């Protein structure tokens, strides 16, 4: 992802949206259902989702656990992600890296990822190798054995990862502060990778307890996409995953946000910065937080405001007023907790950050007083819906979308009905969503700047 984001600035908003669609949550609509998945549940409570795509004899096999960084105990930040790395270490049956060796020997690719709300492991393999990865993935759900000799080098790897992703990048350092300021009480305030001092302090005992608590079939979702049907998968799922005993019933209890009344400002001056940037993030409703009727209108609003080269922000700040090199917006309401609605812009050479802020506020003020147009709403809806067809073309998009939805508390029907939900969004709904969310008292404004001598 790091390299993929090095692109032309004018596509930043689009790239952001694309990455978001594919990595954070659901795709999109068209007419009727999106992915047409088949689903069933094993006797031990493990959900199974199958998305058929028969172009090549390949399958993507994913197991999603309903645990993410926001489920970590206070003081234990980073453990969900740390544990994700440790899942590659070994079991009595597949010890010492044999998991990855076996995947590779069978021509497979694999990886894993951790977010605030889930942790997922996946392999892409030829269809006739599916049972091999299923056996190994099922095995490590409960049979992992860890030693300090494995954990300590991995802790160093994770500290290097933190260094590479955050400490080497002033914009990322600032984003950690934005998160901590925006969420006053919800655990989304902590970075997924964790705070360095807490990563250093995680003990073997913490790690073992985390594994025992969260890794169980009744807290997991199996998603297989590609050249397969549910009828073919079911016997394999029962054989490999169905035999794992159900764990205790789990609930995800997280502190939530109090009312927010004061606008917050964060500013980072760093001698490494050469290109300043400005952003404002508002606390926003999601399916499970706040006024969730605004979720779909906010998706349309984000497209109108900052979705591409003809959006309000880009057309005004970048094209007409020539103040910025990039400008856009983002919204993600698909998480289990509160959402963010964000606006960002980065100045052209010689333009001050205050000018950028004023220009963004003008764009917002115009919507506040005059609203959006029916034409803008119709066009945004059509654009969003066209993406559904493209999503179906991708081997992984369906697996990603359905897995993240189910792991974040949503249902298959929520993903599949997305086209109709977007279609139903009206202009007044977009305007009332705007009014509900663009409240300065529940926002954080961030400025990334060079040090004075570098300006």
């Amino acid at each position, binding site marked *: 992802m790091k390299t993929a984001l090095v692109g032309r600035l004018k596509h930043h908003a689009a790239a952001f949206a694309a990455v978001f669609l594919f990595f*954070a949550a659901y795709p999109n609509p068209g007419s009727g259902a999106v992915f047409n998945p088949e689903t069933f549940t094993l006797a031990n409570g493990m959900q199974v989702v199958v998305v058929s795509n028969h172009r090549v004899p390949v399958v993507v096999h994913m197991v999603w656990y309903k645990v993410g960084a926001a489920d970590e105990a206070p003081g234990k930040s980073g453990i969900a992600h740390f544990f994700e790395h440790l899942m*590659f270490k070994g079991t009595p049956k597949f010890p010492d890296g044999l998991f990855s060796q076996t995947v590779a020997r069978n021509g497979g690719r694999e990886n894993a990822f951790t977010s605030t709300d889930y942790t997922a492991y996946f392999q892409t393999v030829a269809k006739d190798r599916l049972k091999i990865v299923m056996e190994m993935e099922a095995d490590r759900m409960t049979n992992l054995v860890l030693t300090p000799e494995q954990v300590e080098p991995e802790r160093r790897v994770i500290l290097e990862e933190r260094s590479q992703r955050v400490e080497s990048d002033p914009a990322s350092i600032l984003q950690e502060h934005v998160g901590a300021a925006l969420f006053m009480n919800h655990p989304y305030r902590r970075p997924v990778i964790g705070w360095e001092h807490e990563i250093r302090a995680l003990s073997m005992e913490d790690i073992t307890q985390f594994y025992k608590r969260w890794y169980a079939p009744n807290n997991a979702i199996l998603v297989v996409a590609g050249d397969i049907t549910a009828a073919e998968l079911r016997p394999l799922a029962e054989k490999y995953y169905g035999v794992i005993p159900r764990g205790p019933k789990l609930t995800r209890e997280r502190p939530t946000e109090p009312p927010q009344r004061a606008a917050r400002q964060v500013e980072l001056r760093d001698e490494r910065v050469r290109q300043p940037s400005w952003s404002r993030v508002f606390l926003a409703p999601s399916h499970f937080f706040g006024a969730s009727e605004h979720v779909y209108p906010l998706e349309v609003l984000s497209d109108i405001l900052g979705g591409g080269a003809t959006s309000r922000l880009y057309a005004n700040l970048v094209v007409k007023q020539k103040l910025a090199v990039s400008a856009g917006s983002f919204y993600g309401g698909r998480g289990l907790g509160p959402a963010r609605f964000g606006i960002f812009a980065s100045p052209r050479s010689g333009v001050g950050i205050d000018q950028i802020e004023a220009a963004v506020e003008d764009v917002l003020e115009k919507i506040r007083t005059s609203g959006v147009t029916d034409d803008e709403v119709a066009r945004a809806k059509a654009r969003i819906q066209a993406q559904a067809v493209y999503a179906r073309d991708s081997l992984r998009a369906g697996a990603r979308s359905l897995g993240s939805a189910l792991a974040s508390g949503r249902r298959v029907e929520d993903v599949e009905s997305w086209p109709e939900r977007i279609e139903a969004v009206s202009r007044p709904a977009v305007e009332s969503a705007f009014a509900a969310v663009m409240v300065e008292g529940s926002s954080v404004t961030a400025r990334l700047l060079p040090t004075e001598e570098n300006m």
Partner: protein
Amino acid sequence: MGILNKTISMAVFLAFFCIFLLGRPHGATALEVQRVVSPGGIEAWLIEDHTNPIIAMRFAFRGGANLDPAGKQGLANLVSGLLDEGAGPLDSQAFQQRLEDLAITLRFDAGRDTFGGRLRTLTVNRDTAFDLLTKSLTVPRFDAEPVERLRSQILATLRREAEDPDMIARRKLFATLFPDHPYGRPVSGSKEAVAAISADDLRGFVARRLAREGLAIGVVGDISPTRLATSLDNVFGALPAKGTDWRVAEAKPARTGTTEVIRKPTPQSAIVFGQRGVKRDNADYYAAYVLNHILGGGGFTSRLYNEVREKRGLAYSVYAALYPMDFAGLIFGGSGTRNEAAAKTVEIVRAQWKRMADSGPTAEELTDARQFLTGSFALRFSSSARIAAVLVAMQLDDLGIDYLDRRNAFIDAVTLDDVRRVARDLLDPNGLTFVVVGQPNGL
């Protein structure tokens, strides 16, 4: 937001070269490549697939940023940003709005050796999509507003890259390896060069560089060969038959054996390294490819991964990749490690280089690598656009239209003796060039 992968993808480097289809376990490829030649003589390779109402096209003109004139480096890159910023009767906003409203993706990108484009559309908007592509290639406007906007955006990108230790290191490495060759210069140019590019330069680029000779086209999706043939003439038929010669001098990466340090205030040192490699048409290409996979290739199994990351926890990412360009072969790698451990990481990479040069891989490593490389081909075919990119690469590299069916046999034919010989001849631990950006101790 806040999604972390176990590893950063190395696919960016590998994607160009690891193309492909599963031969095994199923034997034949599931995809049939057709050669389509238009009445006007324009050729495209097509995989017809009517499953979804989508058409994906990729194409590339031979000759990229390598041909940018002295003092105007970054020309190809600036043009690539401007072709979809207004053409014919449509100004920039009108053109972009047409693309956005119909959910058409149309983009161009400048590489070192090629100037490429991509188009993706729903079938229902096919004719409009091809028409917009035609306009962008034949009557781009280069209005002052988008020219200055894109210029300012590229300058901002250059400033951002100047903040990024890894990018600083890569630029320095290429400059060191290719001191007197276009490969030593960044595709996006420099502040001064980008500022010097005029509208005439942009128009001259289109007139001289976008020609039918040296054009490779790949198409995947919901379109018949007959319909495609007609569209090919509509889109590319008006381009001149011949353009500027795209060939540049052959280059050999410099053999320095040095470790160059650029001091920057950052807790982690970005490390990159490189040496002579092989070009795509080299008889030992596949042996080198297998060799590199064992030494530093993707996944969680390479020697560098094991020695640097798994055993010692020195880095989150460490890799090496074959980087075959049209006029030079290169092996390129990188890592990122805390400043105190940078010297150690450099030492380990060099030691692993030497160990491989001295004794090659084991028989088991070779078997594993062959199994991975042959078995994983089909995994690349995960979307229409990615398959179309493969079709273009096959043409640019002159691999033959039946390459997908033959490719695994090339990998399987690589013997232990081949890999040992290539390891000995190619890997040059004492000639390897390192660039380290950060505050590395002991370097």
